Structures are given as structure tokens and as C-alpha cells.
């Protein structure tokens, strides 16, 4: 299944139409014409990392979820517009990663150098904007205003998620809710809404749309929780990005928040965002000593079970089984 999907992904291409400065048909997007813009395109390809081992999970989900129409017996085939949603989701995700890497001043991503390290911050930001505009053009061309509304919500959520990350809450109880909200906005919203978008395109039943959305949301949150766990338990080679990255950025993720319940002295460190020398290492020690990692993993399992419960409401099909398998893979991945 993965190899078939890989062949499809290789074959799929989205080419902008030829450009003319005149209006003509309104949506003529410029090809990335002159050599300068071709450089930008090269950056985009490098960012997307077209190796099988590095295919983001998001795209898998899109492909599989587009099998939702099976429920409605409308078509067994994935529509072109649904494929487009998968592409668009990937593009939005990439654009946000490019900008995030500049914001975090990151040097590596998916085992490679980041765009900002190779070409500088100015070009990185412009590259992110370009990808976003390309995604918007593709989205408009699908021609469905509901789908446009759903996916622009994602863009807004991504930005708001970044803002949530800037701030911090003093109250312990508020902190966890804040963390979950940030996790939803930054990670799960994209998956949930793109699942919903493909289901809207495939099937008119709002019950199905809600199932797709809930599946995506739960898988997304579980995915991010495991990502936060791996930041503590894995080593940099496997992850493709440096570990303890979250602590170094001053972020208090799931394991830290759970550990704080056992070691209240972490409160002060959280509030000052691990800014004093030695904070990062001490916090890491606390987390590894506590059951923070286990608790976060358990929480992720809960979300996965919820996702499976939702998707099981669809009628049996090979695609549904694949989606169930996928949410289990989310829990057991090690990078």
C-alpha cells in the first residue's frame, strides 16, 4: 500500500498555468519563471524532502481518508479535488515549517539543513509566503467555497497556535488546557480540517464530515503528544532534528507539565521559560525521573482510541482498516 501511494505521489504534479500580466482568465498563476524564482522552487522541493522514509504522515492520512466516499457508495475512486486537498495540506504544512524554522532559528529539519541556514532568513520567509500563495491558488481552483472556508481556518489556527506558544499561563490548571489548545491549533487543526474537507468533497452527509474531523483531530493531537515525548526519549540522529529542542525554546510540553505535578520546583523554571543556564538540563532530568513521559504516552493512547472509535463508525473497508492501523502507528513510531 505504501509503495502504491508513493508511485501516485511521484506522478502527481501541480503545475501553475502560463503567466500573462494581462487579466485574461483571472487565475493565471505565474510559473516560477526567472532563475531567481526557480531557486525558490528548488528550495520548496528540498523542504518537502521527497524520500520515502520521510513522507509525512499527514499525506498518508489524506490519501486514506479520501476513501470515505466508500461509505456513501458514491465512488470508490479518489477524486482529483481530493488529491488537490492532500497537496494543499502538505503545502500549508511546509509553509508553516519553513516559517517556524526561522522563528526558532533552527539549523536542521528532517535530517537536513533548514532553508534559513542555507539561503538566509529573508528568502526563507518569502519561500514560505510563496508556498502559501500557491496553496491558496490551488484551493481556489477546486471551486468549492465550503472547502476554502475550512482550509483557511487552518491557516488562521496555525498563526494563533504560534501566538499561544509565545505566551504562558501561571495557573497550573490553565497551563494544561493552554497546551492542548496550542497543540490542536498548531498540529491537529490541519489534519482534522483537511480530513473534513475531503469528506465534504466526497459525501454530502454531515455525520461523515464530523467523523472525519474527529478522527483527524484525535490523531493529530496524539501525533503531537508523541512528538513531545520523543523530544525527551529519542536521540538527535533518529529524530532528524535536535532533541530537547522544546526546552531550549522555553516550551513546557506534556511531559514537563506532568513532571511539574511531582516536582513543584519546576514551576519557577517553566515561568522563566528555562532561560537560566542549567535549567534545560535540570528540567530534562526531572522529566526523566518522573512519570511525565508515561503519562503523556497514556494520554496519547486515549486520543488514539477515540480516533479509532470514531472511524469505526464508518462501514468496513480496507481503507478504514488502514486508518485504524495508522493511528496505532502514531503511537509506536520512534522518529
Amino acid at each position, binding site marked *: 500500500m505504501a509503495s502504491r501511494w508513493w508511485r501516485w505521489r511521484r506522478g502527481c504534479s501541480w503545475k501553475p498555468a502560463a503567466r500573462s*500580466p494581462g487579466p485574461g482568465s*483571472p487565475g493565471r498563476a505565474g510559473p516560477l519563471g526567472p532563475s531567481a*524564482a526557480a531557486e525558490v522552487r528548488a528550495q520548496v522541493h528540498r523542504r518537502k524532502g521527497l524520500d520515502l522514509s520521510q513522507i509525512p504522515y499527514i499525506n498518508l492520512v489524506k490519501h486514506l481518508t479520501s476513501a470515505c466516499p466508500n461509505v456513501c457508495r458514491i465512488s470508490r475512486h479518489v477524486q482529483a479535488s481530493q488529491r488537490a486537498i492532500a497537496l494543499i495540506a502538505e503545502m500549508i504544512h511546509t509553509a508553516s515549517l519553513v516559517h517556524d524554522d526561522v522563528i526558532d532559528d533552527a539549523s536542521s529539519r528532517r535530517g537536513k539543513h533548514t532553508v534559513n541556514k542555507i539561503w538566509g532568513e529573508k528568502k526563507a520567509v518569502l519561500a514560505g509566503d510563496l508556498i502559501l500563495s500557491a496553496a*491558496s491558488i490551488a*484551493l481556489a481552483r477546486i471551486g468549492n467555497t465550503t472547502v476554502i472556508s475550512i482550509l483557511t481556518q487552518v491557516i488562521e489556527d*496555525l498563526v494563533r497556535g504560534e501566538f499561544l506558544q509565545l505566551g504562558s499561563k501561571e495557573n497550573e490548571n490553565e497551563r494544561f488546557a493552554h497546551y492542548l489548545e496550542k497543540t490542536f491549533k498548531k498540529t491537529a487543526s490541519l489534519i482534522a480540517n483537511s480530513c473534513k474537507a475531503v469528506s465534504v468533497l466526497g459525501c454530502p452527509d454531515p455525520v461523515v464530515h464530523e467523523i472525519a474531523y474527529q478522527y483527524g483531530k484525535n490523531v493529530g493531537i496524539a501525533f503531537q503528544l508523541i512528538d513531545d515525548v520523543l523530544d525527551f526519549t529519542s536521540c538527535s540522529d533518529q529524530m532528524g532534528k535536535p532533541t530537547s529542542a522544546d526546552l531550549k525554546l522555553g516550551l513546557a510540553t506534556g511531559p514537563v507539565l506532568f513532571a511539574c505535578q511531582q516536582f513543584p520546583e519546576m514551576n519557577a523554571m517553566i515561568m522563566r521559560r528555562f532561560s537560566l543556564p542549567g535549567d534545560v538540563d535540570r528540567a530534562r532530568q526531572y522529566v526523566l525521573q518522573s512519570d511525565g513521559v508515561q503519562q503523556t504516552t497514556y494520554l496519547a493512547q486515549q486520543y488514539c482510541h477515540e480516533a479509532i472509535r470514531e472511524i469505526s463508525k464508518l462501514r468496513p473497508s480496507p481503507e478504514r482498516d488502514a486508518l485504524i492501523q495508522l493511528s496505532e502507528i502514531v503511537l509506536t513510531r520512534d522518529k
Partner: protein
Amino acid sequence: MNFRQLLLHLPRYLGASGSPRRLWWSPSLDTISSVGSWRGRSSKSPAHWNQVVSEAEKIVGYPTSFMSLRCLLSDELSNIAMQVRKLVGTQHPLLTTARGLVHDSWNSLQLRGLVVLLISKAAGPSSVNTSCQNYDMVSGIYSCQRSLAEITELIHIALLVHRGIVNLNELQSSDGPLKDMQFGNKIAILSGDFLLANACNGLALLQNTKVVELLASALMDLVQGVYHENSTSKESYITDDIGISTWKEQTFLSHGALLAKSCQAAMELAKHDAEVQNMAFQYGKHMAMSHKINSDVQPFIKEKTSDSMTFNLNSAPVVLHQEFLGRDLWIKQIGESSSTEVQLSNFQQMLLSTLLSTA
């Protein structure tokens, strides 16, 4: 001054010439009389400009204003404002941009929104397609067109903010601490993204895929245009090896596309036909291009050349001069002039006389 004359005045004040075609005026407007009477006006002082702008704002009822955007009420924007305040005292470009947005008395930053509103009113409702009859209209402009004007401003300002990102590895000690620049970059990216996200949301609410595609492609053009701007040689002692037609293409991307496609989109929202949309596009494009060319020409027509006003070696007059002279001779001329003020003003004088003799 009445409305038709105002729309004709605007390009003149910006240095354009020639009357726009009148074929698409709304039938409720009278034909224009004595167009020639305003050609005698040569006053282009800022005060006069302000007067033109405030009259325009009266005509459209209420202007697009950065301050009226609903995103101003959001937590994020007050968060941004708080963060930008931390940048005071640093040299990050974001501070300059922010100051310009708040204190700009020239109002040039809101030009785009105003032009979109004016053109929406000028065209009026479509006489052919009456499906918009139920849309609400204030001062002759549909609310969706007002929303579009806001979105245009949002996109423009977002890219203005993103233009201010600095490359960290090119910093010198005179730029101040690295941390300040990093922080400034972070806030600049977030603010720009926030504005773009609001623009996208606004576009989605318009429920018109053609308009979404138009504005998204305008954004893509703008990004490419800014990319070209940044790619000009860092030393800035030499003009790029381009002719004026390439310059026009690049300037269309960085300056013309947004206004052109916005004007076209405004017509689409009122369901005007392709001919009207095309005319709106051309108006927006030429308006924006003439604005850019006008500002390029300014350093060469200042009365006092001792002002030592710098000019961009990739601005229109210079590129034209290079094309007439040939690149080798031009590079030789640049090499012959040194960096002292006296010779720089001679340099400008020489350019000016060349341009005037070939005009």
C-alpha cells in the same frame, strides 16, 4: 471637485498622463466636460495630496483604515504591539515599518484600499447582471467590495512587514545585539503571517472562488517581486543587467499586480463582464506603475541638488539610461564617479540631462 474629476486627477498627481477610457462609466454618471481644464494644475505639494485623499475618502463614505480592521480588536494584535514595543531602541526594520503605519501622514500606505473603493463606486452595479441587487450597499459600494479593499491593504502591509526581515549572518556590529534582531525577525514573521491569515479568512468569507484565485495570484506575484528586489546586488554600486521591459515586468510583480488584480476582483464581485474587469485591471496596473515611476524620478527633479538625495541604481531612470547608453559605457561612467557628494550631484545632473534630452 466632483467624483469623475477626482478619479481623473489621481493619476495626474501621481505623474501619469493620458485620460483613462470612459467606456465603462456607470450610466448614471454624466459625460465629462472640459477635461482639459485641470491639466494646467501643477501643484503636487503634500498638502494638495492630502486634500485629494480626504475628498476621495468623503466620496466613498468611509475609507478603508488599518484601524478599523476587526483584527485590531484581537488579542494577537495587542500581543504584537506589546512585542514591538520591546524593539524600541534596536535597529530592526520592523520598528520603522510600524512607525510608518501609525504616524504616516502621507497616507500613501492606504492608497490601494482607497483606489479599490473608488473604482467600485465608479463602476457601480452591473447593468447587465442583476444578481447583486440584494447585496447591501453603503455610499454606492457593496460591503463585499469594502471587505476586498481591506484585504488588499492587509496583503500589502503583510508583505511590507515581511520585507523587513534581516539576514542574521549579514549583521554587522553596528546593527546591535544579535538577540534583538532575532526577536525582531520573529515578531515580523508572526505579524506578517497574522495579517495574511486574516486576509485569507476575509477572502473565504467573500464566497467567490474567482476572487480568491485573483488575490492569491496577486500575493504570489508580490512575493516574486519582493524576491527580485532583494536579489539586486548587495553592494548596490552597479545596476542589474536588465532592460526597461524586464524592469517593467519585475515592477509589475512587486508593485502593480496587487492593485491591478484587486481592482479586477472588485468588478468581479459586482458581477461586471470581462471587458469591465479588464479595464479595471489596466487602471490599477498603470496607476501603481506610474506611482512607482514617479517616486523613482523624484531624486532627479529636486530643486536643491545639494540635498544629497540617494537614488536606487535599479530605478526606472537609471535602467533606461543604461539601455540607451549600453551597459559597458554605463559601468565605465559609474566607475569614473567617486563617492564624494559633489561628484554624486554631478552624476545625478548628468543622468538628468541625459534623461531630459531623450524624453
